[in-house]
């Protein structure tokens, strides 16, 4: 089992969610987050003075999946979240020790 943390541009959320649903992903948790990578931040202006915004808004999806789904999901995210510009985001793939479905108490792969 793996836990994917998928950080993307906010306006790409719908595309990514719909594409993931089509390939059988059954659950997604979404966070509104702020951060920077190589994109760094951007400039804004307030009453004639410029200032830097270092942490720009992104959304982060957390998805728990079976091991054999990972390659497919990475492919789908790349197709649907990329604009080709700097700042498109990243996917972190983490090992997932265990999962429990609270309603039934099922554990492991069955609970995903």
């Amino acid at each position, binding site marked *: 089992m793996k836990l994917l943390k998928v950080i993307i541009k906010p306006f790409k959320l719908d595309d990514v969610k719909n594409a993931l649903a089509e390939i059988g992903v059954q659950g997604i948790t979404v966070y509104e987050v702020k951060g920077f990578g190589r994109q760094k931040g951007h400039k*804004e*202006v307030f009453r*004639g*003075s*410029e200032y830097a915004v270092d942490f720009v808004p992104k959304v982060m999806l957390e998805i728990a999946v079976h091991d054999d789904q990972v390659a497919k999901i990475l492919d789908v995210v790349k197709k649907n979240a990329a604009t080709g510009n700097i700042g498109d985001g990243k996917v972190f793939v983490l090992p997932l020790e265990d999962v429990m479905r609270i309603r039934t108490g099922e554990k492991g792969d069955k609970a995903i």
Partner: protein
Amino acid sequence: MQRAVRGLKSFFSSSGKWLPLAGLLIALMGPLASMAFAADPSGAETLAADPKAPVNYVWVLVCAFLVYIMQAGFALVESGFCRAKNAVNLMMKNTMDFCIGTIAYMAVGFAFMFGADKSGLIGTSGWFLAGGEYDVGRYLLYMFQVVFAATAATIVSGGVAERLKFKAYFIYSIVISAIIYPIYGHWVWGGGWLAKLPFGAGHVDFAGSGVVHTVGGWIALAGAMILGPRIGRFNKEGRPVPIPGHNIVYAVLGCFILWFGWFGFNPGSTFSAHQLRISVIAVNTNLAAAAGGIMALLWTLKKTGKYDMGMTVNGILAGLVAVTAPCAWIEGWAAVVIGLIAGILVCLSVDIVEKLKIDDPVGAFSVHGINGVWGLISVGLFADGTYGLCTTDAPLVKGLFYGGGTGQLIAQLIGAGVCVAWSFILGWLTFKIMDIIFGIRVSAEEELEGLDLGEHGADAYPDFVTTTLKK
């Protein structure tokens, strides 16, 4: 009830014996109310003597109500330009300066400004709107003037925003509404010495570029200087760091409300619907606002490459402030020129104030203090000699560019200088004395956490806070 009394006591405890003073004021009001009067409290005699009075009364009252709504404009501009953690505090200041101003101006301010003149310096009759003041005409004058007094008071809250103790603002509100504003107002509008200057038509200020805006703007500067900049406004090398406001939508809505209110502020100052000059005044008011907004937009576009909403708001307000003194005495093209120059002045002033390491969070001084002075001076340049002092009769007001010579300009320069000195010095003393007695700035911890929590125990936007009943 006991809790309320305790609250009152703790409120006033560190600033001296306020409770007895309040009792004394109430005791004073009793006998005054029963004094004999020869006035016209019902309005019957006024109506019989002047059948044209009703339209004037309606005109002046409607304009007064428009000026009143400018309080909402100031509250929105100031809170929008500041951070969410101080929004309740700014709303409270804008609410309370109107409440306090209303009472203080009724008690003594109105008498200082429009009472029987003493040596051209101060009014000396008409306390508490009692006795001979209990009259439809005098009450009409009070209603129109009290909303102006409150406008002068509320300008200052923007300059001292996000760090001034509420207690200091409460006391300041009494001082400006009872003393600083009405005494200067008497000199210009109450038949005082500035109105009688032997130059031009005397010092003139149609709707208050000086009386209202210069006074408020320069007191705001004094307060901001004594307080010092907000934490984080200048970095360790002394370079300015912008602190963005939390809601530009509020700020722009506030700007629209102020602009709307100004259509009462300026045209209503004829004090008569029979002065058809009101249409000229309304058009000039609108032209200067539009020109100020365009110029500030272009000025900041050149500097930053962006169409800057915040400075555009400041530019519109600068144009309105500047045209307030000359609006009755100029042609349309002059209103546009005055507004364009106001748009430049406000941008330059914001930069200079910042270079001097003074922190004026919303630009109150640059909008009101600088452009108030510009408005007064502009009368001496652009007044075209077609209109007099709220009448079509002589003396007509004529400036340098229309062959009026330098007389009016001199009167305007003297008035502007006196206005700046009076308001800055008294504003400085008011804040400095309070600072020495009890310290006017909140603690660093409270400033960082926000005044909403420290001063008011409140949160303007408590969306994600779960609440339980306090045990």
